[in-house]
């Protein structure tokens, strides 16, 4: 399911690499992509662990790739320690679950009806927490800002999308087809994390002065919005999660591509330095405007449809509080996105030199622009794709899907 998304992602992302890295870099990126495709199609707990570590391994090397840069090394260390911690949680959780059920394969677990013993509850909670670490949901987000800030920007772009997509694929499969019986329990986990992520991500993002940190916090908030779809816990919820991931992919990737292009010629990621970008490079400023507005959820861009889809899925389940928080967070997020827009469009540039955008980056930006606009204006085929994707996914656990509360 997510493999489709990931293939698109990897190809775009590959073009996005530019020439100042060595050959190993490409190898690591490709390896991570491969790992993540495995991860997305993992079908038992053991392979979840193996593929997750496989994917993280690549990132452990990629994040501190700029050896001479202190920040990059710091980011790498932080990411590594917290990542290993999450892996430990995952293993512990898996062992508890195995101890209680004696099974590791998702579909078999779904078939055997079991009561929720304390050991099982702790085990599953730990597994979900480890995946929550991967997607960077609120109480487990602490690695995100520093890692995003320090890592080389292309890696950040990669890190901000691909592992989240893969982790959501696992979460969907686990929660929707293996644990539908425990929905009343895990739904509270989802609701809690969603509210925390949206509020925390958005409110802290207001104070950010660095564009990468801003995107990091806004990413936490976006994950919160996706979790609304997870909390809905229905087939439509699953579709909306996938669709939202797709919209998030284009907008976020595009925004990071602009950041890369900008920092290549100015060596800066400070929002203040974006002043007058509209005069320096109308193309970059316009693209950034589109991507940020899409992230904020403004029609006619992709983000709006994604949010609407998630909200519609949630309203069917009567999750009014979640939707209210989601709507409030739209307003908050609009504020800090507009601050960036203000810098780009309203302020005058301090250095009027035009900015050169290299070819491959331009291609990435164009593809993201096209994706953001087309998904917003004509979403039907993509929604059908998301539905088809969850259709495939239902074959993985055909028996369990019957018990899903539609």
């Amino acid at each position, binding site marked *: 399911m997510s493999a489709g998304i990931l293939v698109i992602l990897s190809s775009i992302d590959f073009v996005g690499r530019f020439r100042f890295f060595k050959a190993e870099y490409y190898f690591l990126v490709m390896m991570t992509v491969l790992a993540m495709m495995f991860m997305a199609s993992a079908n038992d707990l053991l392979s979840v662990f193996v593929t997750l570590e496989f994917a993280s391994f690549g990132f452990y090397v990629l994040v501190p790739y700029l050896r001479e840069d202190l920040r990059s090394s710091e980011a790498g260390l932080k990411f590594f320690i917290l990542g290993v911690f999450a892996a430990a949680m995952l293993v512990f959780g898996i062992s508890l679950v195995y101890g209680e059920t004696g099974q590791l394969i998702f579909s078999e677990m779904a078939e055997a009806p079991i009561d929720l013993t304390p050991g099982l509850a702790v085990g599953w909670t730990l597994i979900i927490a480890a995946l929550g670490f991967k997607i960077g949901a609120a109480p487990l987000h602490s690695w995100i800002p520093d890692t995003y800030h320090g890592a080389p920007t292309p890696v950040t772009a990669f890190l901000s999308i691909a592992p989240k997509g893969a982790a959501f694929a696992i979460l969907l499969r686990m929660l929707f087809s293996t644990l539908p019986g425990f929905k009343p329990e895990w739904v509270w986990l989802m609701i809690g994390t969603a509210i925390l992520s949206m509020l925390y991500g958005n409110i802290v993002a207001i104070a950010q002065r660095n564009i990468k940190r801003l995107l990091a916090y806004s990413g936490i908030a976006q994950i919160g919005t996706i979790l609304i779809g997870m909390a809905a816990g229905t087939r*439509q919820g699953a*579709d909306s999660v996938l669709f939202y991931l797709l919209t998030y992919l284009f907008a976020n990737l595009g925004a990071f591509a602009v950041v890369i292009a900008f920092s290549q010629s100015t060596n800066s990621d400070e929002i203040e330095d974006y002043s007058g970008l*509209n005069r320096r490079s*109308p193309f970059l400023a*316009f693209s950034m405007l589109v991507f940020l*507005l899409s992230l904020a959820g*403004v*029609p*006619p861009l992709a983000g*709006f*449809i994604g949010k*609407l*889809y998630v*909200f*519609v899925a949630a*309203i*069917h389940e*009567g999750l009014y509080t979640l*939707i*209210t928080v989601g*709507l*409030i967070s*739209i*307003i908050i997020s*609009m*504020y800090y996105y*507009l601050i960036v*827009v*203000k810098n780009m*469009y*309203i302020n005058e540039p301090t250095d009027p030199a035009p900015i050169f955008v290299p070819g491959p980056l331009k291609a990435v930006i164009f593809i993201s622009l096209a994706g953001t606009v087309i998904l917003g204006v004509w*979403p*039907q085929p993509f*929604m*059908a794709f998301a*539905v088809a994707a969850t259709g495939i996914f239902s074959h993985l656990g055909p028996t369990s899907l019957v018990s899903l509360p539609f």
Partner: protein
Amino acid sequence: MTESYLLSMILFAPFAGAVVLLFISNRRPLLVRQVAVLFAGISFVASFILLFAFDWQKGGYQFQQNYLWSEQLGIQFHLGVDGIGVPMVLASSILLFTGVFISWHIKDRTKEFYAFLLVLAGATIGVYVSLDLVFLYFFYEMSVIPMYPLLGIWGSHTKGYLEMTSAEGRDLRDSPGFIFNYSKEYAAMKLTLFLSAGAVLALMGILLIYKFSGLQTFDIPVLAEKAHFDGTVATIIWLLCFFGFATIAPLWPLHSWSPVGHAAAPAATSMLHAGVLMKLGHFSIIRTDFQILPETTNTLMPIAAILCIGSILYGGYVAYYARDTKYVIGYSSSSHMGYVFLGMAALDYISLTGAVLYMFAHSLATGMLFAMAGWVYDQTHSRDIPSLGGLAAKMPFVAGAFLIACMASIGMPGTVNFVAEVMIVLGSWGRYPVQTIIAVLGIVLTMAYLFRMMRGLFYGPLSELGHHAHDTRGWVDRLPLAIMMGISIIFGIFPGQLLHVIRSGVDPILARIIDVAPIATQVGGSVLP
């Protein structure tokens, strides 16, 4: 068959124009303007055709186009106009077309300006022609966003803002004590956030309509026909939609973004903002609350009748004391929007028709006033009434046009505003006599502040600031004013077609509201609810 594409043409011409503009270099400003005129002109001409092609005897929704947009969510791209949509579409395209000429002299980033302006106008037209709740919201939110760059880039600070820098820096300037002294960035942000907040309230209402109707559709005609809500749910939905959309209307006490935004905006944006953007609120309330929740409207609409007193009196009072020309006009339009709410609240055939006609009339009158306030500002670089004066000698055409615009705004017989005002007053008298008396007082107040502004700007000794000012030159500057004056007067004398069209839209809506639970609309009903 070609007729059925008329709405798409009106709607998509501005967007197409904006896209074409993206590919034109900023070094060719004349070409940019010509393209903008061309695409705005298509909408302009097509919406006149729409007015006269609309069959008012048949009524109902006409020129419908319906495409499935999203199967999963039950969204349809459903276009269509009824008698209420037609005049508003016409007003939007008139203001867009004239606005393009009004901003002819903008030199900084011309291309971007016109692109945003076209998107803004196109999105407002979109609201007036959509018959699907999601698209109503879609275009509504889309029309709010271009306001941010339009105000921020091409807007202006309030007079005195820049002189307020103290030795300590910006503290003094940003302190709340200096009311009416705002930077354009502040105004832009306030406007965008306020309107988006209103929009999400309404979106919550729309989602609840979707959930509780149980019909899996956002289609307005279908919902109006089949959906039924009762009890608390209906009240909550009604309140969410009402206050969500009343934010943009702007109903007192949710109005505070509006004058600030008016003052900061460039002339053409103020025109569209006051002329059509604000009416999105009333229009959307009619579409959601009036059409989908008729019973609740009957019981809750007195809320509007009470709040509109605040709008009329407070707006008029502040307008009288404001020194800044654009604040005067800005507060006057929030005051005038109170009349529309009064006309709507009375739930009477005559007053609601009057309210819709007033929306149309007000957009022309305020459009003219803002256009000329913008011209005066361009010439003198001041909007401070006491420091201006005697401009009639320098710009006789503008002074004359300004007088006519004031007349129209007050509602002199001969302008379309008169017809509308009389209808609102007549229609509301039966149900809300107190409010009607206040509304009439409001007209007197309007006269007071507009003539005060008129005298301050154009008569008396010529001020220093006006020495280098000159009148409008050539047809480019005069055409838009002439168009707006002409339309205002022609429809003032011959309101026939327009009234018939509006009436055909108002009748079925009100019939449902009144028939569901008959109320006392006769004289002698309660004074206040």
